[in-house]
């Protein structure tokens, strides 16, 4: 007889029950002949209503819900701040501190106030948007390619903005032709390529997660997708971190040229 204490035994029992429930749900789905929605339909955004020529998709509705929740939360949390921080205030201060650390390491300035609004907004928006799909009834807006493209375009336009603001128009335009004018097409190509790379990294990662969860849902809807959903929390936060980091690196590239020369 194998020796085992109570903890191991209870863990094994829970594990067996979970596997049994998953198998039962798989059998029920197979025997009742219930057809799940095709995976392609589940991941494409649906048109909810049209405003003239504008088509409002479910992505936009989900984004509105998210913005509303974030705004109301920010309003009430911002009014309740105290000198001695409580639980939620601690978490928010940690978040702001983390974003400030990313900025000061990669942009290379101690004065982070100029960059904190846009970088912090991008970090919070993408982080919450990636995790929104875990709530029942809501879909995360990032697997629609328009949302990551909008984020990447914001970065695309904010890099020259900060560059021109910190070193003037000629000083910024000069870094395109340094050290030799042959670098001009390469620099322009890299500006465009990194916008697309930002877009596709966020889009592809989150869409891949969604497709895997949808396929597992078709196989067995009860317990099998849960580990993948847990993993998607990790991926979503990591993608938000990487987007923030890359934004800071690109802004730093435009701002730092001034300090070296």
């Amino acid at each position, binding site marked *: 007889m194998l020796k085992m204490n109570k903890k191991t035994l209870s863990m094994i029992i829970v594990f067996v029950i979970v596997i049994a429930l998953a198998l039962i749900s798989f059998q029920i789905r197979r025997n009742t002949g219930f057809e799940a929605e095709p995976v392609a339909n589940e991941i494409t955004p649906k048109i909810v209503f049209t405003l003239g020529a504008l088509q409002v998709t479910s992505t936009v509705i989900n984004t509105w819900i998210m913005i509303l929740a974030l705004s109301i939360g920010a309003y009430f949390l911002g009014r309740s701040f105290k000198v001695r921080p409580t639980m939620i205030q601690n978490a928010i201060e940690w978040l702001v501190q983390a974003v400030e650390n990313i900025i000061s390491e990669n942009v290379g300035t101690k004065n982070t106030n100029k960059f904190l609004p846009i970088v912090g907004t991008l970090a919070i928006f993408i982080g919450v948007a990636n995790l929104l799909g875990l709530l029942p009834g809501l879909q995360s807006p990032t697997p629609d390619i328009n949302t990551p493209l909008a984020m990447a375009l914001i970065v695309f336009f904010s890099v020259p903005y900060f560059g021109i603001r910190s070193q003037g128009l000629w000083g910024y335009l000069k870094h395109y032709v340094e050290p030799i004018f042959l670098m001009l097409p390469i620099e322009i190509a890299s500006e465009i390529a990194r916008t697309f790379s930002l877009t596709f990294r966020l889009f592809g990662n989150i869409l891949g997660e969604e497709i895997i969860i949808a396929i597992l849902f078709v196989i067995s809807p009860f317990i099998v997708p849960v580990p993948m959903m847990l993993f998607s929390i990790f991926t979503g936060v990591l993608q938000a971190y990487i987007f923030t980091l*890359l934004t800071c690196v690109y802004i730093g590239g435009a701002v730092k040229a001034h300090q070296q020369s």
Partner: protein
Amino acid sequence: MDWSTLPWDKIFVLVTVLVAGLGIAMGIIVPAIGQAIVAYSGLKAISRQPEAGDRINSIVLLSLAMLESLAIYVLAVILILVFANPMRTYIFGG
């Protein structure tokens, strides 16, 4: 031989599935090797100089993200092939 009598729609589906499966498998190999090299050298650098760990950590994550985007391009092309192939109209019409 009469080419128009061949079942082009079935051939199209077959080729799409084959290319999608082979493409994702082959396209993942090279970024995987690159990510392995990055993680290997990052670990070596941290174990040699643990006090520089924070700086090395962020650079390693950055390079991993850059390499991962290559694999994501493969995934995007495969997804377009499978779900939204623009050549589909030549075969199936409309």
